[in-house]
């Protein structure tokens, strides 16, 4: 039996008087108790369909044709056409939250910060199943326990900002499922979470589905998640369904070129050396960038690394002044004794879960945050400087050698500056050439990153996310830096655009001989970009190895857990969900004794396993055996 049947659904948006169809005649169905994945890029209309099912379309949008038939398994034979229900009527409100639950991508913003978790869950419960307060409380605590809260009685009174991202998404699940809905709509439920937490939340969703027998509509762009979760797959592109069928059919026998292209555009671990990602839509061709002006004759040892980071420490002191309780001061070690080298011309990947200290480390290198101790030597072949001791004019003259590409292409460009101004600003600050030379340089930069020179007088808002990230890259290139720090440069982009940007970065690196520090939480992306990879956990580098070694022979338990948590877009390699530790991979309690930091015992040290493979463990431990 099908819980939901969508027939020839059309949804139109009217913006500034222009009507536009965003969903153009979509058909699919969701069988009871099964998981259907709706896959597509952003702007494909997948979220709009879920809003239509909930009756929560934005004011500008409306269902213009077709039907959404909901068959409640509790009331045999009754069929409701959601598309015809009045938008704020009682019927649709009874379905929402009662029979159809929904969870969203951003667990931080989907919960109200000024109401307790328990209050928000109870509201949903009382709305659809009124009951006396103590009974409701018992039910909610049972639900909180079920979704993984260790102390549900206390969790009831927590506020969302007191919880980690994973726990917030669990609370959202508890809220969506408290009324035992027949259908759960999950809109990118794990996109904002770390891989190990993602594995846990997906696992929880599968267990709850088995217990409650609900159907799941999983909306995602991640084919790895789809392969591990879905029974049926619907692929949507520009409001039209490209292909649909069982997961078996879709992954083993993809028919439509769009789906094949989608599979090729996402980086994965099995890529051959030198294999390139194939972007869905090839970006406009660009001529190879002009190589960097030849460096001055080398007087010093050529083999010295470009950047040598030694024993960097950074702690933050947090003073939590609870209003009605005792104030406590706690010290968080964000970066703990970190040392590594970046060789000239290489790309060093830095991976780790959120909160592991990788962004703090990048800020320390950029001199945006002052570390407690440590040394960072920068050697560009001409002179060798300690970045941390630079002051005033020296620091200003050093800045051009080190540039950064940011994660969010929207907020990292000033909305009040034209592209010309954005790209010229670094040249003006560092007094490079006169006006005409600067303009010529800016035009050359636009060519280098594959953007049309005619765009120069436009403002950032008129560009897509991928184009904006190209502008960000051009800005970083403007001063001919020696080293570029890329902080999650593609994590805000769609799969297809991601492939274009990654290819662009690779090409630029080859053409101009750039050196990258590439920070990401996405292992597949790092695998595609990096020559060597450093894995960071709890402020320390736990493993550092050449790319191939790290992926084929990881030694540290944290690296292993990370690798095991990455979902593959392959039905034959499903995730082992149960492997993930309860507190995430960085929970040291689950690491074997040889890797566990021990305040009393010997300090951990980096053991050299040969061929540039370092791992953080107890000195003398036979880590090879453990591996």
């Amino acid at each position, binding site marked *: 039996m099908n819980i939901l049947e969508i027939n020839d659904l059309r949804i139109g948006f009217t913006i500034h008087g222009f009507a536009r169809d965003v969903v153009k005649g979509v058909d699919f169905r969701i069988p009871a108790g099964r998981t259907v994945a709706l896959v597509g890029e952003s702007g494909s209309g997948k979220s709009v369909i879920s809003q239509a099912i909930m009756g929560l379309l934005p004011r500008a949008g409306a269902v213009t044709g077709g039907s959404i038939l909901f068959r409640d398994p509790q009331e045999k034979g009754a069929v409701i056409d959601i598309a015809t229900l009045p938008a704020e009527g009682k019927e649709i409100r009874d379905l929402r939250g009662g029979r159809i639950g929904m969870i969203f991508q951003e667990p931080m913003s989907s919960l109200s910060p000024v109401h307790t978790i328990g209050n928000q869950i109870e509201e949903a419960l009382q709305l659809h199943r009124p009951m006396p307060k103590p009974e409701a409380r018992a039910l909610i605590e049972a639900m909180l326990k079920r979704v993984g809260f260790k102390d549900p009685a206390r969790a009831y009174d927590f506020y969302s900002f007191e919880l980690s991202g994973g726990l917030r998404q669990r609370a959202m699940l508890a809220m969506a499922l408290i009324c035992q809905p027949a259908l759960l709509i999950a809109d990118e439920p794990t996109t904002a979470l770390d891989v190990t937490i993602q594995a846990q939340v997906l696992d929880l969703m599968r267990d709850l589905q088995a217990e409650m027998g609900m159907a799941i509509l999983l909306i995602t762009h991640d084919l790895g998640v789809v392969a591990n979760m879905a029974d049926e797959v619907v692929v949507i592109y520009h409001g039209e369904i490209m292909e649909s069928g069982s997961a078996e059919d879709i992954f083993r026998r993809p028919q439509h070129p769009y789906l094949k292209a989608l599979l090729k555009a996402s980086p994965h671990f099995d890529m051959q050396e030198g294999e390139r990602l194939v972007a869905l839509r090839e970006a406009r061709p660009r001529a190879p960038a002009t190589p960097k002006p030849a460096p001055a004759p080398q007087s010093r040892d050529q083999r010295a690394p470009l950047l040598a980071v030694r024993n960097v420490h950074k702690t933050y002191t947090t003073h939590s002044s*609870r209003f009605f309780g005792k104030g406590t001061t706690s010290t968080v070690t964000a970066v703990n004794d970190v040392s590594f080298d970046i060789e000239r011309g290489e790309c060093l990947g830095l991976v780790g879960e959120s909160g592991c200290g990788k962004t703090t480390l990048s800020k320390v290198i950029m001199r945006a945050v002052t570390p407690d101790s440590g040394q960072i030597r920068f050697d560009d072949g001409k002179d060798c400087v300690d970045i941390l001791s630079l002051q005033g004019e020296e620091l200003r003259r050093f800045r051009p050698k080190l540039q950064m590409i940011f994660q969010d292409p929207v907020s990292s460009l000033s909305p009040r500056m034209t592209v010309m101004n954005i790209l010229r600003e670094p040249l003006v600050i560092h007094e490079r050439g006169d006006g005409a030379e600067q303009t010529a340089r800016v035009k050359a930069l636009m060519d280098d990153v594959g953007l049309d020179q005619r765009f120069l007088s436009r403002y950032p808002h008129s560009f897509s996310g991928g184009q904006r990230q190209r502008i960000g890259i051009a800005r970083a290139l403007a001063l001919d830096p020696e080293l570029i720090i890329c902080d999650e440069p593609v994590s805000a982009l769609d799969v297809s655009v991601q492939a274009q940007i990654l290819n662009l970065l690779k090409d630029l690196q080859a053409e101009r001989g750039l050196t990258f520090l590439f920070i990401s939480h996405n292992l597949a992306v790092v695998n595609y970009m990096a020559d060597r990879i450093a894995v960071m956990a709890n402020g320390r580098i736990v493993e550092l190895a050449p790319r191939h070694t790290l992926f084929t022979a990881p030694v540290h338990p944290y690296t292993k857990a990370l690798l095991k948590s990455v979902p593959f877009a392959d039905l034959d390699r499903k995730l082992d969900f149960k492997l993930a530790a309860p507190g995430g991979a960085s929970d040291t309690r689950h690491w074997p004794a040889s890797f566990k930091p021990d305040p009393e015992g010997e300090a951990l040290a980096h053991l050299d396993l040969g061929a540039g493979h370092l791992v953080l463990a107890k000195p003398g431990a036979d880590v090879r055996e453990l591996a």
Partner: protein
Amino acid sequence: MLLSYIFKRILVMIPTLFITSVLIFTVINLPEGDYFETMVAEMQAQGEKADMSRVEFLKKEYGFDKPPVERYFWWVTGLLRGDMGYSFEYQLPVRDVVGDRLLLTMIVSFFTIIFTWIVAFPIGIYSATHQYSWGDYGLTFIGLLGLAVPHFLLALIFLYFANIWFGTSIGGLVDPQYLNQPMSWAKFKSVLEHLWIPVIIIGAGGTAGMIRKLRANLLDELQKQYYVTARAKGLPPGKALRKYPLRMALNFFISDIGDILPSIVSGAEIVAIVLSLQTTGPLLIRALQSQDMYLAGSFLMFLSFLTVIGVLISDIALAILDPRIRLQGTATK
């Protein structure tokens, strides 16, 4: 913890008020001369003979022959004892000059604030939930008119039309026979009859400002994911709006209390002059013009005291209402 927080905040108020008092005293004493010299000059200009011996006596009596620092301490210690000094112009203690007017001012301001809230809240909510509708545009237009037209002009227009249409003079706050009478039921009724015009005029600008602020805040909150979550639970739109976005939009409202308290007392000076209201505004302006230093200084100190208290109240209210302020720690870099 809350108590110790309040205690700390009150301790911080001491240096704040001290600096304010120094500033007020300095600014008032900056212009050449003092009240007595102004008075003598005025009398001589009118061809009268000033009683110089009396002026000398008064100067000595109030310490004007002493250095400013000494006079400052004399003034401040008086304030600490609750003695606001003596008004030369009215030849009365400041407390008696301000007393009656303070009460009337508070009545006007209180009703103005209530008027502002009652009008601004529903309109702000309507504008935000019906963004870009004709209703939103119309109400926004009227609100902006209220914001853009100067108050004294509005007051003149009201005076004119009230006289033509109702045949009444609406100047003043009470009928003349109740002036300087103790508060009675009849006087109170007379005040209420006169009250509505100044309340509307003074409230017009504030209302428009508050509508815009509430609309902008609410529009921001309506975009937030947690509002979608609330509706996805099946909450009716009105209830969802009240519990979540409106609650969040209230924060700015509470932090406004700090500004409201002093404005309750100072009133709208210029409107008060045009409408000849017996509030404290005109008094303050006159006192500053004639360098009636104890009246002006003590009154300004009173206003600063209310400002500091208002900020304290809004901070405490915010901390109680918003768990993020109450529970989240502050990080030091």
